[in-house]
């Protein structure tokens, strides 16, 4: 029972990471793509928006990893072995994104140097969510095989597939859309720049439809178990609700109801990840590693559950305070 509670916490952390940490990567994507007469103002808006929160947002990823290796050690070992290469690439992206962002902010050398950090920040922000999508997709392909606790499918299984790359592309589009939507609603964004991000959110939000379709098509061959899940009785219901949220987000953007658009976009991302998790359940790595066969002994899971509950009691008021101070209405 405790393994399901802990898995639930991990799923929640994944959603929080996606709607906060990955959205910060989305901000970096728009930083790289900043164009037009207001490119500088766009970059400033992005920096103001993610500056105070990106480090806290990033910790969700660490929390996911820590829960994974405490509660499901064999799953962690297998993932880090089979997906050694994409995770290593992801780490390079994480290090360069974070360092370049903070260096750009505090470096007072020259405009050229700042420009250099800017490009590095943007490129790393582009790359990192893509490779995260690829890695997450690889877990569903069924090509990573673990027999007697050993990965027997080598270091290239799963992630070098059309399905995994479609997932990477989808993650890229999703977080770009999410970031652009947030930026329209951020209290510190000026109205000209707000218009720029409104258009960007509309474009990227619309682009998600064909990419989602691509993921679905490639899953038939590339992730049969997932495809099977997505054709279950509950799937149309979930896809339908997700579509409603997606349309609501785009409509709110169109009608300039930005606060509403932000909520709808968060709902959309949450539902997409819920769908993925339901189609994946109870497998952590398709097909061999499941929540129950990878679970740590009960005592570990029980103590971890207590720690997560106490941690959440400390964490959520703090996070609420952080976001209220920086994302609430300007006083």
């Amino acid at each position, binding site marked *: 029972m405790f393994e399901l509670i802990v898995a639930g916490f991990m799923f929640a952390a994944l959603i929080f990471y996606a709607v906060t940490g990955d959205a910060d990567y989305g901000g970096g994507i728009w930083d790289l793509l900043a164009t037009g007469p207001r490119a500088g103002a766009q970059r400033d808006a992005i920096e103001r928006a993610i500056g105070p929160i990106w480090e806290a947002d990033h910790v969700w990823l660490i929390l996911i990893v820590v829960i994974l290796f405490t509660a499901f050690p064999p799953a962690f070992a297998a993932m880090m072995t089979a997906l050694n290469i994409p995770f290593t690439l992801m780490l390079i992206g994480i290090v360069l994104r974070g360092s370049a962002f903070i260096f750009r902010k505090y470096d007072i050398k020259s405009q050229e140097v700042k420009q250099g950090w800017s490009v590095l920040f943007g490129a790393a922000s582009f790359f990192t969510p893509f490779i995260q999508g690829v890695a997450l997709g690889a877990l569903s392909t069924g090509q990573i095989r673990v027999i007697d606790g050993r990965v027997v499918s080598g270091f290239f299984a799963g992630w070098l597939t059309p399905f995994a790359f479609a997932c990477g592309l989808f993650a890229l589009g999703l977080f770009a859309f999410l970031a652009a939507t947030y930026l329209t609603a951020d209290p510190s964004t000026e109205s000209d720049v707000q218009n720029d991000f409104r258009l960007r959110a509309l474009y990227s939000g619309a682009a998600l439809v064909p990419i989602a379709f691509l993921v679905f098509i490639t899953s038939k061959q590339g992730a049969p178990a997932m495809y099977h899940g997505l054709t279950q009785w509950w799937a149309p219901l979930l896809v339908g609700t997700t579509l409603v949220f997606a349309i609501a987000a785009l409509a709110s953007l169109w009608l300039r109801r930005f606060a509403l658009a932000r909520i709808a976009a968060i709902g959309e991302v949450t539902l997409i990840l819920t769908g993925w998790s339901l189609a994946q359940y109870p497998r952590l790595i398709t097909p061999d590693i499941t929540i129950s066969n990878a679970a740590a002994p009960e005592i570990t899971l029980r103590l971890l559950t207590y720690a997560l509950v106490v941690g959440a009691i400390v964490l959520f008021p*703090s996070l609420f305070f952080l976001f209220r101070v920086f994302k609430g209405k300007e006083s």
Partner: protein
Amino acid sequence: MPLIAGYAHCYVESNSDFPVNDFLFARSQMGMSLAFHIVFAAIGIGLPVLMVISEALYLRTGRPVFLELTKRWSRGAAILFAVGAVSGTVLSFELGLLWPAFMEKSGAIIGMPFSLEGFAFFTEAIFLGLYLMGWKRLPPLVHWFCGVLVALSGILSGIFVVTANAWMNTPAGFKIVDGKITDIDPIAAMLNPAAAHEVLHMTLAAFIATGFAVAAIHAFFLLRDRRNVFHRNALGMALVLACTSAPLQLISGDFSARSVAKLQPAKLAAMEALYRTQTGAPLRIGGIPDDQSRTTRFALTIPHGLSLLVNRDPNSKVIGLDQFRPNDWPNVRLVHWSFDLMVLCGVALIALSVAVGWRAWKHRGVPDGKWILRTIVAAGPLGFVAIEAGWVVTELGRQPWIIYGVMRTQEAVTPMQRIAIPFVIFTLIYLFLSVALVFLLRRQFIKTDAPFSEVVTKNV
């Protein structure tokens, strides 16, 4: 993409031809990542304490010099914390990327302190964001309290991580029956025998290293302009932190060494280059340990010194490396030399602390003599040298075990081949970041120093 091609090429080419090399590269990558991260982790523990003290003084006295100081230290903290956050993420993944079998075995036992560390780190990141960007948005006392929470959670996350490391040295909280791990007790694992002395030693080390490094920077500027109140106050605060912690480290170091003698006698024997178990064991300083002849040449030898230090009895017995099979020995030379380097730095800093304390007491103020300031500048890096050397002692001294006495490091290594590639990439990235950081921090000081010094002198 060339990277992936490189990987692919190597994968095809290598049919487990040089597994030993991969093992060495995996260890090098872990060691390099830790050596890089530990600097930022230590500053993340020490610098917030200074910020909080300085802001408290500002709130009490209202003098702008303390506000300026708080803001400047917090700017340094912002930059260094960000690098620490990302290099820490690298480590949490590398545990699995490089040592999957280790994590598979120990995750359930020792994941607990890592999870708690996750929350402590989360709190630190949240309140650091509030602290750095919230100057105008938060009432002064709330702002200060955010800083206090940053300092506390920084200390706490250090404690949790060191606890996990201590478990690798003195594993506890489980049983092995027929080669399988049973009876897991995560609490007992967390409270393992080495936890207390490692935590104490590392936390003090973070205060000392940060304190002396910060002191060195301000002593450097004070040397140029003795009337600068800004640097005088900064130096005073940094010295208070460093010079009160340093003498305590003497007690903590003694406690650590005697604990290691009990818990990991092979490590102690390597630290002291003691090949032969003997009564009245001498203390050897420096020299060249030689595993073949089991002697240490050219060492400064203090008869009965080691027995006296370890057991408080000059004629007591101390276990040497001869009690262990040679393939269970750590690298004696590196461990012994690193240990001596750490102690040397520590003794130098304690001596400096005493000198500073005496001068401060005599002159009723921050010491500003030319030679003592020059010494403080020169001693700036010693705290970090000691941390790096001490870390080498702990980790290399544990070898060849990843879980002392339970699992060998070689058994834990990833089956991934050509680890040289990520090792080289991360080394280059970290080198690049280090160089960029040095220039960046230098520019912060040089560009902002001149106007500040005038303003502050006028205001006070």
